[in-house]
């Protein structure tokens, strides 16, 4: 067990000291964006890997969060620290529009409905000119401030996204290792049997959607102030597909899998920058090759992880 402690301490030191080690602004940007994608991937895994609900429109909830934040800050002059949680809540509440009507849908049909919803969100943002300025987007989103200190440096944004990511992971872990998590996984594995064991499945499906989209909204909210400009194109359908692919690539239903998936799908194409145009080519091939050789994802998913770490406590077992 001492080894485990050491690993944690080293990891913590690396994470906290990262801005000192990375001097290149470009790489800091990469790392910050990876953090954002990781939040999206983890929340996706909660909804799909644990909850079994196929959501192909997750990026649109990030868009909703981004627009909420932008509008709250630009029009109402709210502080970022108020706008952010409100944006998460906004995304979660809007997710009811999807979650409630689709309660009876399963599998690919649910996926298609969420896909449709995601596109309708994008088109709404595009066409609701008075509110969103349509395709021109919302520029000039103010930077977050703490008192008189304005957050502008990459280092500062890094710590923010790190904190948000840790909160997301922590919250997800808490949910998974709780009565709610057990109910979700039961619904995922066999909804009828879950109901026969007393689980009110419809409610949980809506609830897991809300929790997952809350964090997507938070991620979008961060994006809005980090990049200080958003448009309906900031989060597209292909982004939803990428987010969907991340936990599957890394290993569904593991807490680490989505992180790995995000790392690979986002950092890898950027890291191979030499072939600037070709990087999405590699992403496409990578996805196919991984699925064809390791269908359960790089970590081998659920069971393999539980098996591999049986000696130490498996992440997914109730503690």
């Amino acid at each position, binding site marked *: 067990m001492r080894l485990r402690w050491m690993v944690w301490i080293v990891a913590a030191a690396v994470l906290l000291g990262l801005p000192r080690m990375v001097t290149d602004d470009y790489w800091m940007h990469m790392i910050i964006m990876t953090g954002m994608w990781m939040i999206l991937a983890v929340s996706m895994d909660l909804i*799909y890997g644990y909850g079994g609900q*196929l959501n192909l429109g997750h990026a649109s909830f990030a868009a909703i969060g981004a627009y909420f934040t932008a509008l709250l800050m630009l029009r109402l002059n709210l502080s970022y620290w108020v706008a952010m949680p409100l944006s998460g809540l906004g995304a979660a509440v809007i997710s009811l529009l999807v979650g409630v*009507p*689709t309660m*009876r*849908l399963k*599998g*690919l*049909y649910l*996926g*298609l*409905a969420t*896909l*449709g*919803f995601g*596109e*309708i969100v994008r*088109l709404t943002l*595009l*066409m609701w000119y008075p509110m969103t300025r349509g395709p021109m987007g919302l520029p000039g989103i103010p930077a977050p401030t703490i008192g008189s200190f304005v957050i502008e440096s990459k280092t500062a944004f890094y710590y923010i996204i790190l904190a948000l990511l840790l909160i997301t992971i922590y919250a997800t872990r808490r949910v998974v290792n709780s009565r709610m998590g057990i109910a979700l996984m039961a619904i995922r594995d066999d909804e009828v049997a879950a109901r026969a064991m007393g689980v009110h499945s419809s409610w949980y499906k809506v609830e897991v959607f809300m929790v997952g989209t809350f964090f997507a909204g938070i991620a979008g909210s961060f994006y809005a102030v980090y990049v200080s400009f958003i448009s309906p194109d900031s989060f597209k*359908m*292909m982004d939803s*597909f990428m987010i*969907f*692919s991340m936990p*599957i*690539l890394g290993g*569904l239903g593991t807490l680490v899998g989505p992180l790995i998936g995000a790392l690979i799908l986002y950092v890898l194409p950027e890291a191979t920058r030499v072939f600037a*145009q*070709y990087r*999405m*080519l590699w*992403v*496409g*091939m*990578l*996805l*196919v090759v991984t*699925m*064809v*050789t390791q*269908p359960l994802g790089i970590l081998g998913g659920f069971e393999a992880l539980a098996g591999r770490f049986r000696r130490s406590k498996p992440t997914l077992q109730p503690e």
Partner: protein
Amino acid sequence: MHPFQEFVQQLINGLVIGSIYSLVALGYTMVFGILGFINFAHGDVYMIGTFLGLVLLGTGAFSFTAALVGSAILTGIIGVAIEKVCYRPVRRFGKGFEDTMLVSAIGVSIFLETLAQIIWGTETHAMGGGLHRVAFQVWGLRISSVQITILVVAVALMAVLQLFVTRTVTGAAMRATAQNMTAARLMGISIDRIIAITFAIGSVMAAVGGMLVGSYFDAVYPMMGWTTGIPAFTAAVVGGVGSLPGAMIAGVLIGLIETLGSAYISSGFRAGFAFIVLIITLLFFPSGLFKAKRGEGKV
């Protein structure tokens, strides 16, 4: 133009684009019926087929018809190759890997789109050397020869497919596989071969559709797979997964809704109409608008 004439004009336009959606939808619905997943890469195969036709036309050695046939053949081969490399290995893992296949399809889609962008750039190309355009005036309506060609070709292809599926042994094998893959295998049907044929047919029809559309709008561009793909897979779902007649009718339906909606409600929202139909269908008609009749034309 008299408002009613305008309306009929839009009906015709909707019918034409709808028949293309039907052609492409057939590819989605056949694969969904047999393999149980939406092949998101199908739209990109449609796009690649069109670009291949463009290339053939560009050599100057092919007439439009020859280029169309050539592209159809090449695209059929590509479709089969993609299935063999990207989907069949996943199928070998057994049941329960639909999301894996979905991700693989996403990978293929990304790959094809990027390839097209690298080779041909992101801008829109003119079809050039396309179909000879003649415009007819009938009752004050403008109908072009291209539109008539599209309708004729689409209907002909769909009729041929319907006959093939209902009247041939291979067609029966396809239907059997869609209904119960295990039983079909036990009857000695080579599932791999049937699936390869399914992909071949779907890809061929997609390429034909793409060539016709490319000519109709005189535009070929890397994202055209999604512009048509979305209404097309919506049509597949609306028509009832696995139902060929369903996909055919639904394709036209969506073409009409899209065109009329675009003309009378909002042209900016054009892409959204298909999604609204999709969501309404999923919520209220879960097995599609047209229940696939057992054995009758259902793949």
